[in-house]
């Protein structure tokens, strides 16, 4: 574990933040531009930064809604997500999540919430969407974990392009079309075991699997 931490520190030092448009100040080295903008929205209700976020993430969220069967409500979902981003931005902490990861979880929660409302389940359910799906522990400091979080997104982006298409296809169906592993197996007409092994191979390569102790 300690060895791994050292490696991560080393990685940060030697790898310049090459994907950024702007040259970040030294102290801001680990912040990507979207996270900086989201922080500005949270700290000073900066509407220019908010607009930039909208232009970047709005189309992504619209596609996300369309891909998982909410075509006729796609723009409605984008609106809900952005209103939620505005309201919650004061809770955003760049050390704990990249803006894109933070926004993805809001999009996911709002999608679940919208489907729930369509099925008129919210009124009958004592627990809210966030009670089930929001990761707890907003206020705790887990420095090593934070570092993991920041590194992971960059690493995932880099290694995803190296995965065979059959693996990325399965992952895309799970995340974008919201299909269970079983549904993906049915659709691709392959055994469930094959779907699972493709996901495992991919997660291994993305180093998402830390320790699968039960397997």
């Amino acid at each position, binding site marked *: 574990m300690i060895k791994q931490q050292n490696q991560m520190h080393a990685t940060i030092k030697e790898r310049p933040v090459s994907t950024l448009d702007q040259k970040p100040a030294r102290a801001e080295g680990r912040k990507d531009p979207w996270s900086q903008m989201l922080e500005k929205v949270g700290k000073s209700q900066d509407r220019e930064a908010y607009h930039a976020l909208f232009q970047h993430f709005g189309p992504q969220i619209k596609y996300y809604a369309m891909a998982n069967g909410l075509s006729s409500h796609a723009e409605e979902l984008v609106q809900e997500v952005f209103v939620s981003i505005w*309201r919650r931005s004061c809770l955003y902490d760049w050390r704990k999540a990249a803006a894109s990861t933070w926004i993805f979880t809001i*999009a996911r929660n709002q999608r679940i919430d919208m489907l729930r409302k369509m099925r008129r389940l919210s009124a009958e359910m004592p627990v809210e969407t966030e009670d089930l799906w929001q990761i707890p522990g*907003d206020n705790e400091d887990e420095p090593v974990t934070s570092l993991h979080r920041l590194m992971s997104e960059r690493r995932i982006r880099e290694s995803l392009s190296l995965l065979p298409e059959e693996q990325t296809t399965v992952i895309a169906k799970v995340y974008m079309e919201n299909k269970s592993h079983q549904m993906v197996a049915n659709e691709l007409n392959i055994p469930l075991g094959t779907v699972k092994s493709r*996901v495992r191979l991919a997660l291994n390569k*993305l180093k998402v699997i830390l320790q699968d102790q*039960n397997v």
Partner: protein
Amino acid sequence: MTQHHPDSLTLMEFSAGNLTEPHALCIRLHLDQCSHCRSRVDMLDSLGAVMMEQQPQVTVSGSMFDSILSRIDSEPAVQDLSGMRKNRVGPLEKLLGTDLNALPWKRQLGDLSVLDISDRFPGQSEQVVLQKLTAGGKALAHTHRGEETTIVLQGAFSDKKGVFNQWDFVVLNQQDEHKPVALEGDDCITLSVLSAPVRLTGTFTRMLNPFIR
């Protein structure tokens, strides 16, 4: 410290938002107590973000940003959300409305009590059951006809696979015959989501099986 965690595939289904609500509740309760799995889910959320970023581009209607701004302007100023971080009632308390031990438990054979809470999840087909095994008590040997996801909410139990402590997570299926025994000290309370009813393997008749109606 929990020893038994959900596997990465289940966490991925959680991160993608694809689990049923009872299953999501089990994961959420585990995440509440397990920083190891929280960081795994964080990484999976990042995977979701990168997948979302790499999809085809679509255009968003030009007037939408203005509608968003007018919605924001018509709402009261951003409230202080810091209260959201503290003193939140946990999902289980919200769901049950009372303390675990104060529930209207239904006594079964011997040391086991159960409470079916499936009706708290309208629109879900799974059976959601709380089970309580009195401290030191034994459950009957049984197998599982479908898949059973269980999280320990209080106390601990052991079976031939090991000891399952509070917040441990375990999935059992057809192959797993087990005979759980609650550890001494505290009643063991678990939350289980069953995709199909359990089947007794002993000599008892089906009428004694709490899960067959």
